[in-house]
C-alpha cells in the first residue's frame, strides 16, 4: 500500500521519470563531496544531540524529583496540607475524617530534619490510619532482632528510606540523633520503607512521638485522605465539600497538584534551556542551507542540462530536498544516540539540573523518552529539509538556457536587495513578543524571537549591501580591496549564505550575554542593597531564637543593632511552589528597608500591610493598594503596601511586620539575625560573644555568614546556573563558525577561474590573498555587526518578555561591551583567516589551468 502511494507521489512530481538521473546526480555529489555531506550531517547531529540531551536530563531529573515527592506523600491521591510549617490544628483531623465521601484519613506531622548532616523529611504517622491510606509510609524491619513491623508502635523507632539509609550510613539498630524544629532527639533505626522509592530522603516515626519529642503537640502538617469510592464518586464535588471544611491555614492538594507544583519549580528554566539547545539545531539548519546553496550553484549547469534534456522543475526540487532529507536522517539519528550518551554523562558529572540547583538530589539515571526522541528526530529532519528547500527552489527556478551559458551566474549588482521580507518578519516578531504568556510560559515570546531571528537573517543581504555601498561607490584605494568590496557589493547574497548560521548563533549569544549581564548586574546591585548587615546568622532544621535569647544577644557589647526575622514557606495555591513569608521589624511603614519599586501612600483601614516581591506581584496579580488573603490568620485582610525587587526567591515573597506576624500567628520564634556592629567594634570578638551566648544545642544548628561570603555564594550560584547556557551558546557559535569556514572556502574555491584570470593580468598571489582577507574581514564584520544588532534586539525580548514571563523578574538593560567587541573581533578574524586559507588553496592551483574553459 505504501509503495503504491509513494509511486503515485513520485509519478506526479515527475520523480519517476528522472529517478535514475537524480540517483546519479545525488550519488555523484556524495562521492565527490563526502566531507560536505558529513559536515552538514554533523551540524544537524550536534543540534539534535544537544536538544535531546538537555530534554532527557531535565526529564530524568524531574522524574526523579517527582519520584521523591511521591515517596514523601506516600501515594495519597488527596491530602489537606498546611500552608506553612506552623501546621494546622489537629482538631481538623476528626472533622475531615467524618466528612461525607471520606473513607479514611491519616494525620501526618512533616518536619525538615537533619541526621548526620543529611537533610531528611521526617514524617510522623499514625500507623493504623496510614495502613489504610498511605501504606507506602509503613516501615518494615527486614533484618535484625524483632523482625516484622511491631516496632512501628515504638516511640523511639525510626524507619528510613533506602536513600536516607544510604546517605546517613545507618543500619537497623543504629542510634541516630535527629534534629528537627530546633530539638535533637535520639532515635533507633528500626527498619526501612520499602515502598518509598529510590530517591526520597525520608524518615518515618510514630506521630504522637513526633509531636511530643519535637514540640509539635496539637499541630499536624498534613492529612492524607482516602475517598469512599474514588471511581464512583464525583471527585470534584467531594473535593469542593472538603474545601469548605478546611481551616484558613490549609489547602486541599491532589496528586496532580503536587506534580504541577514540583513541575512549576523548574519549568521555566527547563523550557528556556530546551529553547536554547534548539538554537544549535537552528544553526545546523542554516548550515545545511549554506552547504546546499553552494552545492546547487556548483551544479546549476548539471541541473540545467537535465532540464534541457527533459527533467521537470519538481524533480530538481525533489533531488535537492531528498539530499537534505538524507542528511537530516543521518544527522538526527546520530544526534539521538549522541544525545542519550551526553545526557548520561551530564547526569553523572553535572547533576539533574545541570548545575542550576533546582533539584537537590539530582537523578538516578537517564529516563529514555520515546516521544521526545521522535520530536527531536522530526526537528532534525525539518531543519535539514527546510535548509534545502530554498536552494532547491532557486535551482528549479533558474532558466536552463541561461544557466547552461552562464554557469548559473545570476548576480546583478544593480538589482536592489529587497528589505521588506526582513521588515515584515521583524514586525511580526515584535508583535508576537508583545503578546501575553500562555500557561505561564512565554510561548509568544519564543515565537517572536524566532520571527525576529528569521527577519534578521533574511535582512543580511540588504544589510551587507547597505554597509558596503558607500565603500563600493567611493573606494579609490588598492585594487585587491576594490575587488573585494565590489565582489561583495555585487553578491550580498553570497555573504548572506555564508553568514546566516553565524548571524543566528551570534545574535542568540549576544542576546543571552546581554540578558545575563543585565541580570547579573541587577542581582549584584540588589545584593548590595539588601546585605546591609555586618554578619548574618541563620538556624537550620527548624531551630529558632526565642525572645529571651534575642534580648540577651542584642545586649552584647559591640552590637549596634540586631534585626531578627522569621522566614517560612507559605503555600498560596496547592499547584504552585510556596512563596516565602518574611516577618521582620518594619519601623517606618511608609519607608520600609526594601528595594521598593512601587508603593502606596496609605493602605485601607482594618487591613494588615504587607509588601510583596516583584515575582509575587506578577504570579498572583497583587498590585499596590490591593486587598489580599494570606492563609496564615483566618479571615484577616491584608493590603499590599508596596512591591519590592527580589532576585532571591523565584516563587515570590511577602514581607510582614514581625509584630503583625506574631499577633496573627502566635509564633514568637525567629530564625535569622542581621547584626550591625557598633562603629568601633571588631567583627571577630563580637561573633565569638554571640556564639558563646547561644545555648550549645542551638549553636550547633546555627550558621554564620558574612555579607561578602553571601554575595560571593549568590553570584557563584548565579554563574553556575548559567554555565550550561554558555556551553550551549559556544556549541552554536562553533557550528556557525564551521558554516562560515565551509561556505567561504567553497565560495573561494569556486572562484578559482577568476583568480586565474587576475593572475594572468599581473595580480600577485599576495594581492589575491589580500583581496580575500579584505573580503573575509568585510564578511566577518558584516556578520558580527548584523549578529550584534540582532542580538541586542533579541536581548530586549529576553529581558522584557521572556524573563518576566518565565521567572517574574524585571531588570534594565546592561550592554556587555567587552563581549560585543570580543565577538566582533573573533568573528572578523576567523572569517578573514578562513578566507585566506581557502584563497591559498584556490591560488595554489595553476593560473593556467584555472582559466581553461573546460576546467
Amino acid at each position, binding site marked *: 500500500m505504501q509503495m503504491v502511494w509513494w509511486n503515485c507521489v513520485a509519478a506526479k512530481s515527475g520523480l519517476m521519470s528522472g529517478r535514475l538521473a537524480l540517483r546519479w546526480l545525488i550519488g555523484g555529489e556524495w562521492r565527490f563531496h563526502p566531507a560536505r555531506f558529513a559536515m552538514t550531517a554533523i551540524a544537524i547531529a550536534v543540534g539534535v544531540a544537544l536538544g535531546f540531551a538537555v530534554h532527557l536530563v531535565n526529564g530524568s531529573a524531574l522524574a526523579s524529583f517527582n519520584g521523591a515527592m511521591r515517596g514523601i506523600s506516600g501515594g495519597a491521591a488527596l491530602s489537606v496540607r498546611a500552608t506553612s510549617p506552623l501546621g494546622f490544628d489537629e482538631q481538623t483531623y476528626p472533622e475531615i475524617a467524618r466528612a461525607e465521601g471520606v473513607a479514611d484519613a491519616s494525620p501526618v506531622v512533616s518536619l525538615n530534619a537533619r541526621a548526620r548532616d543529611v537533610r531528611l523529611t521526617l514524617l510522623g504517622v499514625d500507623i493504623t490510619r496510614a495502613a489504610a491510606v498511605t501504606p507506602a509510609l509503613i516501615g518494615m524491619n527486614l533484618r535484625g532482632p524483632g523482625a516484622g513491623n511491631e516496632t512501628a508502635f515504638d516511640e523511639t523507632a525510626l524507619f528510613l528510606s533506602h536513600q536516607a539509609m544510604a546517605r546517613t550510613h545507618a543500619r537497623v539498630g543504629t542510634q541516630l540523633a535527629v534534629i528537627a524544629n530546633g530539638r535533637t532527639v535520639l532515635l533507633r533505626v528500626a527498619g526501612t520503607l520499602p515502598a518509598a522509592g529510590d530517591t526520597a530522603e525520608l524518615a518515618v516515626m510514630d506521630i504522637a512521638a513526633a509531636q511530643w519529642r519535637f514540640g509539635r503537640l496539637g499541630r499536624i502538617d498534613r492529612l492524607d485522605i482516602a475517598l469512599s469510592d474514588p471511581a464512583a464518586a464525583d471527585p470534584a464535588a467531594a473535593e469542593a465539600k472538603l474545601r469548605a471544611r478546611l481551616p484558613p491555614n490549609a489547602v486541599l492538594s491532589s496528586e496532580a497538584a503536587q506534580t504541577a507544583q514540583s513541575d512549576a519549580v523548574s519549568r521555566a528554566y527547563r523550557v528556556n534551556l530546551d529553547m536554547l539547545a534548539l538554537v544549535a539545531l537552528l544553526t545546523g539548519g542554516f548550515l545545511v542551507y549554506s552547504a546546499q546553496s553552494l552545492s546547487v550553484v556548483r551544479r546549476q549547469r548539471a541541473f540545467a542540462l537535465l532540464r534541457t534534456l527533459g527533467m521537470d522543475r519538481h524533480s530538481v526540487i525533489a533531488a535537492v530536498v531528498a539530499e537534505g532529507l538524507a542528511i537530516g536522517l543521518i544527522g538526527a539519528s546520530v544526534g539521538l544516540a549522541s544525545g542519550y550518551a551526553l545526557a548520561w554523562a551530564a547526569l553523572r558529572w553535572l547533576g539533574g539540573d545541570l548545575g542550576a540547583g533546582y533539584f537537590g538530589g539530582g537523578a538516578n539515571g537517564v529516563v529514555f523518552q520515546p516521544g521526545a526522541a521522535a520530536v527531536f528526530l522530526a526537528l532534525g529532519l525539518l531543519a535539514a529539509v527546510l535548509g534545502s528547500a530554498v536552494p532547491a527552489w532557486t535551482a528549479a527556478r533558474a532558466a536552463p538556457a541561461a544557466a547552461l551559458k552562464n554557469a548559473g551566474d545570476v548576480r546583478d549588482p544593480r538589482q536592489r536587495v529587497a528589505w521588506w521580507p526582513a521588515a515584515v518578519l521583524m514586525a511580526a516578531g515584535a508583535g508576537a513578543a508583545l503578546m501575553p504568556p500562555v500557561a505561564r510560559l512565554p510561548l509568544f515570546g519564543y515565537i517572536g524571537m524566532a520571527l525576529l531571528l528569521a527577519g534578521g537573517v533574511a535582512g543580511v543581504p540588504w544589510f551587507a549591501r547597505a554597509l558596503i555601498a558607500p565603500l563600493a561607490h567611493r573606494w579609490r584605494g588598492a585594487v585587491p580591496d576594490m575587488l573585494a568590496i565590489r565582489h561583495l557589493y555585487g553578491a550580498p547574497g553570497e555573504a548572506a549564505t555564508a553568514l546566516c548560521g553565524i548571524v543566528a548563533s551570534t545574535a542568540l549569544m549576544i542576546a543571552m550575554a546581554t540578558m545575563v549581564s543585565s541580570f547579573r548586574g541587577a542581582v549584584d546591585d540588589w545584593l548590595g542593597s539588601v546585605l546591609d548587615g555586618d554578619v548574618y546568622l541563620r538556624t537550620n532544621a527548624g531551630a529558632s531564637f526565642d525572645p529571651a535569647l534575642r534580648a540577651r544577644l542584642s545586649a552584647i557589647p559591640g552590637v549596634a543593632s540586631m534585626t531578627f526575622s522569621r522566614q517560612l514557606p507559605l503555600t498560596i495555591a496547592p499547584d504552585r511552589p510556596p512563596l516565602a513569608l518574611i516577618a521582620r521589624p518594619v519601623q517606618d511603614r511608609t519607608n520600609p528597608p526594601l528595594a521598593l519599586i512601587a508603593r502606596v501612600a496609605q493602605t485601607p483601614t482594618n487591613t494588615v500591610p504587607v509588601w510583596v516581591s516583584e515575582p509575587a506581584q506578577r504570579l498572583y496579580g497583587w498590585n499596590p493598594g490591593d486587598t489580599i488573603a494570606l492563609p496564615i490568620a483566618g479571615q484577616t485582610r491584608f493590603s499590599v503596601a508596596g512591591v519590592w525587587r527580589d532576585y532571591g526567591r523565584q516563587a515570590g515573597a511577602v514581607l510582614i511586620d514581625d509584630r503583625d506576624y506574631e499577633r496573627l500567628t502566635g509564633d514568637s520564634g525567629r530564625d535569622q539575625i542581621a547584626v550591625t556592629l557598633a562603629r568601633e567594634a571588631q567583627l571577630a570578638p563580637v561573633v565569638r560573644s554571640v556564639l558563646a551566648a547561644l545555648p550549645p544545642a542551638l549553636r550547633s544548628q546555627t550558621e554564620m555568614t558574612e555579607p561578602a561570603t553571601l554575595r560571593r555564594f549568590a553570584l557563584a550560584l548565579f554563574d553556575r546556573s548559567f554555565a550550561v547556557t554558555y556551553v550551549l551558546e559556544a556549541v552554536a557559535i562553533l557550528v556557525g563558525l564551521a558554516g562560515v569556514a565551509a561556505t567561504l572556502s567553497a565560495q573561494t574555491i569556486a572562484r578559482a577561474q577568476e583568480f586565474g584570470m587576475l593572475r594572468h593580468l599581473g595580480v*600577485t598571489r599576495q594581492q589575491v590573498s589580500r583581496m580575500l582577507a579584505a573580503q573575509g574581514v568585510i564578511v566577518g564584520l558584516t556578520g558580527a555587526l548584523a549578529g550584534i544588532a540582532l542580538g541586542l534586539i533579541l536581548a530586549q525580548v529576553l529581558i522584557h518578555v521572556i524573563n518576566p514571563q518565565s521567572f517574574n523578574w524585571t531588570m534594565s538593560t546592561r550592554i556587555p561591551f567587552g563581549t560585543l567587541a570580543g565577538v566582533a573581533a573573533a568573528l572578523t578574524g576567523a572569517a578573514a583567516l578562513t578566507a585566506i586559507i581557502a584563497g591559498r588553496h584556490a591560488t595554489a592551483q595553476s593560473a593556467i589551468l584555472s582559466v581553461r574553459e573546460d576546467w
Partner: protein
Amino acid sequence: MAQTVPRLLVRALGKSVPGPRRLFQHLDLAVASGELVAIVGESGVGKSTLLNILAGLDAAEAGSVTIAGTDLGPLNEAARTKLRREQIGFVFQAFHILPYLTLRQNVALPLALVSPDARAAERRANAMLDAVGLGGRGDGYARDLSGGELQRVAIARALVHRPALILADEPTGNLDPETAARVLTLFAEAVRHHDAACVMVTHSAQSAMIADRVLQLNADGLVELRGG
C-alpha cells in the same frame, strides 16, 4: 608593416611534458610591433603551453623569451608578474569578465593594477570601450552583453594599458562564425592601431585568416604556413 626591433623574441625554446614525449624544441619566433601572428596546430601539440611560456606562467627547459627587451629567464615570479601586468594583455576563450564589476571597471582593471589614478583609468577605459563599439555602456555589467560583446570588452581590457604583447588563446572559440568574424576584425584593427605585437593560438581557419603570418606548431618548432 614594421620590421624593426621585435617586441617578442623567442630563441631555441624547448619544452617537454612528463614522460618521454617532447612538446617542441628549437622554437624560434620574432613578432614585431603591430604584427599579428597566428599559431595553429593539432590538439595537444603545445600551443597553449607556448602561450603560457610567453606569458611567464610556465617555464621552458631550453631557450629564451624576450618581451620588449626584457629577458624572462633571469626574472623571479614577482618580476614576471610585474612584466605581465605592464607589458602583456590577454584575451581568453571564455572572456573572463568579472560579473561584479561594471564593464568600465573590467576594462580599467589592468590600469588600476599599476596606478591609483581612478579618473584617468576610467577615462582611458571609456575610450577603449568607444574603440570596440561599446561606447556609453561602461556602467553596464557582463550579464547585459552577448558573447561577442563580452569578447570585445576583453579585447578592450587587453589593450587598455598599451601592452607590448597581446596573447590570445582561441579568442573566438565561444562565438558563432558571424560574430567571430566581426570580433576578429575589430581585434586585428585594435592590435595594429595600438602597435602591439600579438600571438594568437587558434584552431580556426577563419581566425588565422586575419593574421599577418600563420605558423604551424609541431615537435620541431614553428613552420611558416603563410608569410606576411
